[in-house]
């Protein structure tokens, strides 16, 4: 098992994980006096009030002091020395220790981001205040991202526009190699050849025969590409309309779960160990598993009840994978999307999500090292309503408000 950076945190510190996972900059703020708290506290340092909530705060700061750590007690950092950190006076008030981008010099202005470290815990990372073209190439920054450039990536389902667009976006983002799964004949995994248009005009995209319904076939794939594999993007969507009053309700549920949940489990079983092994070598960046999920994983859309349930189950299973692959240092991330602008959704009102939008979100998620990205207005609106009142949302979805 590979070593990981220190992972012990208080509950108050763990509240930052949600913001880091979504790429937002937020710190605990006192609900009475407005004082920004860092390190995270349980009681306000200024007025002793106990209600502190995460709020967006200014991202700027001044780098007061810098050191290069050359001796450490921690095995994960020892494999990555020397390591630069600094003391940053945040514009919002407190002083924070932060990991530093190589371009940050003492006395200069910096911009802070909340990142997830290799343990999956939230940390502060300071970047130069002014963006530069090569900023993403920083050695320390890349320990917190899964930058696709130069990496070997598997996109599981090339039978859909979503899969093909995702492969194309990753190839254009500089991936060394993108394998695109082409379904074998299997009732659960719609058989369609990878069309040449839009994908194979890029030399770094290679079709790969892959059947998510067939564990033995997947083992062969893993034996073939696993040693080089850095990132898996599972784009299997398995869309089927229908819910509780469909004449074939149970069969529909079974088929949806086969395509979405069992497929994910089969893929994870085949490629998970390879990613975990890859994570142990500090020479490679952080491996990642990215799953595209329907936003209806978060709240059931009744007319698509079997599909919603399958995506909810897949999201739950991803949480399991996040814990277990995470222990080896693999990032498990999800892209939550609203209904796609594809033939299956031709009867849906706008706004629909173009497959290319999801593809761009996958690239952006990897580049920024996020754990969750929400794509499209429908999905964002649904999550906002869910956060406000789950039961109100349930009624709205029951009345056909998408």
């Amino acid at each position: 098992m590979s070593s990981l950076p220190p992972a012990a945190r208080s509950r108050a510190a763990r509240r930052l994980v949600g913001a880091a996972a979504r790429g937002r900059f937020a710190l605990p703020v006192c609900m009475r006096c407005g004082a920004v708290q860092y390190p995270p506290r349980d009681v306000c340092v200024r007025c002793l009030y106990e209600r502190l909530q995460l709020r967006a705060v200014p991202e700027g700061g001044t780098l007061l002091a810098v050191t290069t750590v050359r001796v450490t007690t921690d095995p994960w950092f020892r494999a990555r020395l020397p390591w630069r950190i600094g003391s940053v006076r945040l514009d919002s008030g407190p002083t924070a220790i932060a990991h530093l981008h190589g371009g940050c010099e003492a006395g200069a202005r910096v911009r802070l981001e909340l990142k997830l470290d290799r343990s999956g815990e939230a940390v502060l990372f300071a970047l130069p205040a002014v963006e530069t073209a090569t900023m993403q190439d920083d050695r320390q920054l890349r320990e917190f991202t899964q930058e696709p450039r130069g990496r070997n990536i598997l996109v599981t389902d090339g039978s859909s526009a979503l899969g093909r667009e995702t492969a194309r976006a990753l190839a254009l983002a500089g991936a060394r190699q993108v394998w695109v799964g082409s379904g074998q004949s299997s009732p659960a995994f719609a058989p369609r050849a990878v069309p040449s248009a839009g994908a194979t005009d890029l030399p770094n995209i290679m079709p790969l025969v892959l059947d998510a319904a067939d564990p033995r076939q997947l083992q062969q794939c893993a034996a073939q590409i696993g040693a080089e594999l850095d990132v898996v993007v599972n784009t299997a969507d398995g869309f089927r309309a229908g819910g509780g009053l469909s004449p074939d309700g149970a069969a529909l549920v079974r088929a949806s779960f086969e395509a979405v949940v069992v497929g994910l489990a089969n893929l994870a079983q085949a490629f998970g160990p390879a990613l975990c092994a890859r994570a142990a070598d500090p020479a490679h960046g952080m491996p990642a598993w990215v799953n595209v999920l329907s936003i209806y994983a978060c709240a059931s859309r009744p007319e698509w009840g079997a599909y919603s349930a399958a995506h909810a189950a897949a999201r739950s299973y991803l949480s399991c994978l996040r814990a277990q692959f995470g222990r080896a240092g693999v990032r498990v991330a999800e892209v939550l999307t609203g209904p796609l602008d594809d033939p299956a959704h031709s009867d849906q009102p706008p706004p629909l999500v173009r497959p290319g939008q999801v593809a761009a979100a996958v690239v952006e998620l990897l580049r920024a090292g996020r754990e969750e990205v929400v794509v499209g207005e429908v999905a964002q609106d649904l999550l906002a309503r869910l956060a406000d009142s789950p039961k109100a949302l349930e009624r709205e979805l029951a009345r056909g408000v998408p």
Partner: protein
Amino acid sequence: MSLPARIARRRYDDVVIAAPVTIPYQRHSTQSAHWWAGRALRRVLEVARLSAADVDGLAVSSFSLAPDSAVGLVQHLGVAPRWLDHIPMGGASGVVALRRAARAVQAGDADLVVCVAADTNQVDSFRNTLAGFSRFAQDASHPYGAGGPNAMFALLTDHYMRRFGVQREDFGRLCVAQRANAARFEHALLRAPLTLEQYLAARPVCDPLHLFDCVMPCAGAEAFIVTRAPVAAALSLPAARLLATIERHNAFATDAIQERGGWLLDAGELWDMAQLGPRELDLVQTYDDYPVISMMQFEGLGLCAAGEAAQFVRNHTFTLDGTLPHNTSGGQLSVGQAGAAGGYLGLVEALRQVTRAALGNQVERARTALVSGFGMINYDRGICTGAAILRGD
């Protein structure tokens, strides 16, 4: 609402300190903190010709006693004190234990208090101490490279050097003088002579800190007795009087980065209570896990003005025969840092000096000593500060 004016602090009357004990340090130890504390207590009792039943009060400081505290230790060591304190203040533990014990003795709550600091250093225990040091360290400093106090002091040093125009040579003068003092102190783990050239050429540890700026963790114990003068006399123990003390926690919390310590708030009170001034000192023991913090103590305690410690260091010599003998046993930088015992080292050494009981490194005419403590890098800065002035006969 405004509070009534504070009352004047009481002097310590006939409270005295005696029986300085150092259990020779080891780089690593397979023993426990209990073992080291037990050896220190037994040695104190041997020196004072007392038995365990005579331990009327006990103050304990240790980082490696877990899962025990002072409570577990009294049962482990078989003593039954009527006054017990556990002082988890790291480098301020010695001064703070002395303050607590002195008032207990003065008030009659205990007639004879043994103060003990002991820590072991097992092969992996330093790593565990750092990982679990404090809530804020766990959440907000340790995950950033896990450089421990080296990294936090490196940041303070980086800022201090630029803020006040301090050079590595200035820190080097202190370190080289301390190593020269250590040559005469038999318990120092690092006694090989050190030149300024060697200091400057050392390998970097956490820039701008290099090897000889950093303490070496080790195992060891220190102890002393606080009692009344008549008790010390009855036991024929050479003793020093306690002229004044101060203590402060979390001073200047809104400073963006630490460039001064709590001594600055309380130094006036210290000198007033002692009824003397910095020029009347025969020696000074600062808490020296890194030289930058010795500089902040010189400034905070009024030996020089704020931001002028580098010039002060250039103007003085700090060896046993220097213009201001400083860290006369070599300090932690040469003796080693035995956890919380590092917070006792300067106090025990000052007690030996002013009672003419130094171990081969006696400063001539040593009568009045200033001892300073600094403890607990809870997150980005040290929290606890304290100081005491001792006078021998």
